[in-house]
């Protein structure tokens, strides 16, 4: 196993000693210890692991079992830079596989290898980076590149190498003002905003302000939700009027800032005017380039996007600095907790019951009922856990909430802790969300510092201590019993329920596990009253639900809508429908546990029962819109591939059953399907659903069953050798039509030389060489490359 290099010295294991000193010697420290070791060496050297066992109570069996269970951990040395290729749902439907192939070509990866020959880059597949609106996305050492195409992949690599080699930028200098009224420039800095370039925009704003000494402060705010408009800058003048600028680039920052804030000193003013005038002259743009970016929240698309939304969990979105506690307090922060302190625990539970709140993690279990169970369960101490292990591909609601509203979630947890009688709470947040981890950590520290939490709660008797554990890359840890196993430093294997965590949770004690969004809704409920919350929504589904809207929709983003709106309203009004020329086909709701709502059922309301009736589920809130270019068999295969890969491997039905289902789906997609396959698939799906122990296995067949239910004819077309959407590589071919102008661009770009260089002659594709990478179609200036899927002759 060890890949010790004879030329390198033995590892200096004193680092392991320091890590153990910091993390402790108990078995539950194993994951943090492994994370620290990997952060240090970028993989887990076996000698370091043996050293851990020598120093701690962690056994060799435990460290081996744990370190091979979680995807985060690597047992082999890797290249100097890690490229994460996102294979989330949105990225998948936008061609992640083609991006992955393009990377492999650019880096000349040998077959089956993930690291290039020079050891510079290692390419890893990740389930979802949660930047769905930027799909397809890759992340190179934390730098995110979005909206890639196979042709822009090399550019991204080159850009990364340029940045890496560029000298470090000078750090920001604080700007000092002298008494003039001050305006505010707000910029969203959630991780997806940063990925979309907000970081660079912020640097540009700082630079402009430093140079012009304009009277404005820059404020980092949480997610605005309008991912399709990012980078988004809001300028609030001293008088309080506000203006939004969408898709701001670093170059357009200066005119935007100068439109609202005057530079100080005549020379600077003149200089900047001249620059602006020059700009216009050179770019030949009519009028003021600033106008192009300005959007008005009360008009047009923005209004439609925001219109049906109600911001409860995301209250004040885009206006608060996520970690500014004072600002949170000024916006009624901790008033709900204050109020709940006046209630008895039973009254708190009664209030939640009156609100009709149901768990937002997916299954929709009545929150008050869960709380009552924990409260009544014998055993002390009791624990409270925040499930922030959002791992569904295509979902990023919890990340956004954690990044943008850390205090609100902490406040919600404090209310719940009081209701169930817990004095200790744990955040479990996946390691793929570093910014969420950072902000929650900072917010917890701030709350303790101010005496809001800790040995007393807002000065009242009763204590609440919060801590944070990071996940390590296992979707199944979103299941509560697996999550608890992971917190305890074990492999994240779900166990049979009952007993439920309410009776037998952390350390065998009663434990409340709720989802991030559930906690985030509590402050609103306790400030406005259960009645107001219950007034929103449908008979059985109350309040609002946050969704990540992505896929083939014009305006993707993070949205919060009252229960009871229709799927169509979300797609058409908020999302602006699918792209021109495309037909809306279905919405995939609930990710790998969910199903598809076909276009003809788009009037289905967002409601736990209504969605499950049509074969979907509310799930945690991923909404991926699909159009006629998406193959439903491919979608089913995609999700099953995900759950199959994420199975913990315990139960027969999930471990082997999902694999056998995938075998069938894979051969259908490859045109090797057999006549009895659909019946076989359906039967197996029913068995896996009925026979699995935990939620992952029980819901894994849903995407298959739901697509079989609504799109059976697509499956049958595949059996006949045809992919109607033209997605399944084995069933399509590329052809160049008469529209070809003979420009040779496709021939130049074809990575496998399947197109010969014949200038001014209609090009032809050698189908035997063609890998269906789509590059030719994308580069063709005459749209002469088409994808066909006729009855392909079977081998």
């Amino acid at each position, binding site marked *: *196993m060890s890949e010790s290099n004879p030329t390198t010295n033995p590892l200096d294991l004193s680092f392991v000693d320091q890590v153990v000193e910091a993390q402790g010697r108990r078995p539950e420290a194993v994951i943090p210890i492994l994370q620290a070791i990997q952060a240090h060496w970028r993989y887990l050297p*076996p000698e370091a*692991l*043996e050293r851990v066992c020598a120093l701690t109570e962690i*056994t*060799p*069996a*435990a*460290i*081996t*079992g744990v370190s*091979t*269970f979680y995807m985060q951990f690597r047992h082999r040395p890797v290249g100097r830079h890690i490229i994460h290729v996102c294979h989330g749902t949105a990225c998948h439907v936008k061609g992640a596989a083609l991006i992955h192939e393009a990377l492999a070509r650019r880096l000349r990866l040998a077959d089956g290898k993930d690291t290039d020959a020079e050891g510079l880059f290692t390419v890893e597949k990740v389930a979802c980076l949660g930047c769905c609106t930027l799909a397809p996305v890759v992340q190179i050492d934390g730098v995110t590149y979005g909206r890639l195409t196979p042709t822009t992949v090399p550019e991204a690599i080159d850009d990364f190498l340029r940045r890496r080699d560029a000298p470090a930028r000078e750090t920001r200098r604080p700007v000092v003002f002298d008494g003039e009224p001050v305006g505010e420039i707000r910029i969203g800095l959630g991780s997806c905003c940063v990925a979309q370039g907000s970081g660079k925009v912020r640097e540009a704003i700082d630079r402009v302000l430093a140079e012009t000494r304009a009277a404005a402060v820059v404020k980092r705010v949480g997610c605005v939700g309008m991912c399709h408009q990012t980078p988004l800058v809001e300028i609030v003048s001293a008088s309080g009027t506000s203006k939004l600028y969408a898709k701001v680039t670093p170059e357009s920052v200066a005119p935007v800032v100068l439109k609202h804030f005057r530079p100080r000193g005549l020379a600077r003013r003149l200089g900047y005017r001249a620059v602006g005038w020059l700009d216009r002259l050179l770019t030949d743009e009519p009028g003021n380039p600033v106008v192009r970016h300005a959007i008005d929240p009360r008009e047009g698309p923005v209004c439609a996007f925001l219109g049906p939304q109600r911001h409860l969990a995301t209250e004040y979105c885009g206006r608060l600095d996520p970690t500014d506690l004072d600002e949170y307090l000024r916006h009624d922060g901790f008033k709900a907790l204050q109020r709940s302190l006046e209630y008895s625990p039973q009254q708190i539970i009664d209030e939640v019951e009156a609100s009709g709140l149901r768990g937002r993690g997916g299954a929709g279990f009545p929150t008050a009922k869960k709380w009552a169970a924990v409260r009544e369960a014998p055993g002390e101490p009791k624990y409270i856990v925040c499930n922030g292990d959002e791992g569904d591909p295509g979902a990023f609601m919890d990340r956004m909430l954690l990044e943008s509203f850390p205090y609100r979630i902490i406040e919600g947890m404090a209310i719940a802790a009081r209701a169930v009688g817990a004095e200790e709470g744990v955040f479990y947040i996946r390691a793929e969300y570093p910014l969420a981890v950072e902000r929650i950590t900072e917010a917890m520290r701030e709350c303790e510092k101010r005496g809001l939490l800790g040995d007393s709660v807002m000065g009242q008797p009763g204590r609440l201590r919060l801590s944070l554990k990071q996940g390590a890359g*296992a979707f199944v840890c979103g299941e509560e019993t697996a999550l608890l196993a992971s917190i305890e430093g074990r*492999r994240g294997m779900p*166990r*049979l329920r*009952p007993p439920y965590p309410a009776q037998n949770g952390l350390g065998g004690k009663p434990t409340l596990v709720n989802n991030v969004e559930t906690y985030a809704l509590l402050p609103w409920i306790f400030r406005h009253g259960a009645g107001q919350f219950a007034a929103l929504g449908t008979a059985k589904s109350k309040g609002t639900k946050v969704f990540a809207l992505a896929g083939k929709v014009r305006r993707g983003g993070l949205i919060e809508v009252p229960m009871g709106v229709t799927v169509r309203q979300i797609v058409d009004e908020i999302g602006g429908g699918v792209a021109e020329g495309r037909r809306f086909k279905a919405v995939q709701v609930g990710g790998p546990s969910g199903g598809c709502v076909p276009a003809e059922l788009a009037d289905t309301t967002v409601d736990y029962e209504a969605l499950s009736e049509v074969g979907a589920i509310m799930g945690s809130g991923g909404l991926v819109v699909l159009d006629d270019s998406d193959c439903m068999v491919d979608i089913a295969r995609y999700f099953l591939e995900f759950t*199959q*890969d*994420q*199975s*913990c*491997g*315990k*139960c*027969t*039905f999930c*471990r*082997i*059953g*999902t*694999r*056998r289902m995938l*075998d069938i789906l894979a051969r259908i997609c490859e045109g090797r399907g057999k006549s009895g396959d659909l019946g076989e698939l359906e039967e*197996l799906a029913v*068995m896996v659903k*009925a*026979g699995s*122990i935990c939620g992952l296995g029980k819901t894994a067949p849903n995407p298959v069953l739901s697509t079989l239910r609504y799109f059976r004819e697509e499956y049958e077309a595949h059996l006949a050798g045809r992919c109607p959407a033209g997605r399944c590589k084995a069933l399509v071919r590329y052809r160049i039509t008469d529209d070809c102008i003979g420009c040779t661009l496709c021939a130049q770009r074809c990575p496998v030389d399947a197109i010969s260089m014949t200038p001014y002659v209609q090009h032809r594709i050698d189908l035997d060489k063609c890998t269906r990478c789509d590059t030719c179609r994308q580069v063709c200036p005459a749209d002469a490359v088409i994808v066909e899927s006729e009855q392909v002759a079977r081998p």
Partner: protein
Amino acid sequence: MPTIRIDNKTIDVPPGGTILDGARRLGIDVPTLCFLDGLTPSTSCLACMVKLRGEGRLVPSCATTAVDGMDVESETDEVHRVRRAALQLLLSDHLGDCLAPCQRTCPAGMDIPLMLRQIADGRPAEAIVTVKRDIALPAVLGRVCPAPCEKGCRRAKADAAVAIRELKRHVADVDLALENPYQPECRPASGKRVAILGAGPTGLAAAWHLARQGHAAMLLDRNAIAGGRLRTEFTPDDLPQAVLDAEIGLILRLGAELRPNTAIDDSTVFDDLRKRFDAVLVACGAAAKEQAGRWGLAVAERGVRVDRGTFQTGLPGVFAAGGAIRGKCLVVRSVADGKEAAVAIDRFLMGRPPEAEHPFSVRIKHVTAAALATMLATASGASRREPDAGFGPWTLAEAAGEAARCLHCDCRDQEGCKLRRYAAAYRADASRYGSADREFREVRAASGVVYEPGKCIDCGLCIQIAARSTDSLGLTFVGRGFDVRVGVPFDRSLDEALGELAAECVEACPTGALCFVERSDQESARRPP
């Protein structure tokens, strides 16, 4: 003490007990693979599923605490379907051969690897017992059989098949040369009488097996001597008279009676036979097809029409086998038919339901070069020994040398394997969901334990047991999902992992994944003679 109902029967379960406890108290054989008393249920195999009637939910009975008033279904079609699916899924990822390929290709299903081990170990007296369990005429077949078993032999992929037929002949000849050749013990006389029409290979084999079962078998043959086509199809060089006579002699000595020169040409004689005997077996070869009409038997394309599983003709108590139903067939097929028909007749005579019994087996579909190298590592490297013309029969040492070339593809835990046992009981189709496509691997420990990851079903029992040891490393699951496998931490040895708990782990393993290399202890437990 909670009282629950299982399949409409009421049972008290001790407090804290499970549904499985209740089922066992009721004597219901709920399949369990990953469960062992005294260990934490891992709910991994899910073969023990039952249905909760009230909730309509399926739950693993091993880990579901019995709650007063629970109403449970266990032995219903629906529950059995789910259990069968679980077993079939496990089988689809279970890499191994219950029965060796040679045994599976032998029409008589002879336990060839066991015979080869007995020869290799210099125990010919045991080898003849193994042979005669399935083959009544081994000295004959050792000379005339085209040896389909050798076509199945995996050793052929490396160099050449083990000389199985020659070794069988060796075993039979050594036995026949004894003053008292081997004769099995017969069951006490049942008082039942069976008439066998035709004393060819089928009839002789049937007579042998019926005699062993305690039934009085009478062979009726139109010829003056027994042997049927064995007398006409082979030259004396291929099959010396003396050999044939000797083996027929043993059959008759075991208790079968021969009526030579007896033709049953008309229906009244046939009907009379049916009256006088408890069963009749038509075993007169291809000629039976012409006679059948006269006896009131229906014919199919090739011979007398029978139920292929039970050899029963349309007439109650009348069976047919061998050339009589197949037209032309190999002698070994006739001998096998004779045995199987005898088993079917025995069931009929003893009033047990007719049932075709085919031993259950999974199989390794593709053997890679690497897998073959692993398998070859512990076998003799000698090349195949052919009979040396003119130099007389093999010595015991020569036979042992050839037998040592066997790769022993058969599973060490054939009889103890719970997966196999329940797969057979639930009539699981081993390839319903495809066959395992893992690489064959084998890890041998100095302590004599052998671990075959391909056969592991991830039940985790050995991990739980090994964790109890204070001075060994223990075992762990390595990886997750479909590729999860039991492994030793830090890639250390199996000995370091198991320590003093090795025997307990082997005992707990529900399949042949963990076994002792040495098979001798277990083999006496294989099918009773």
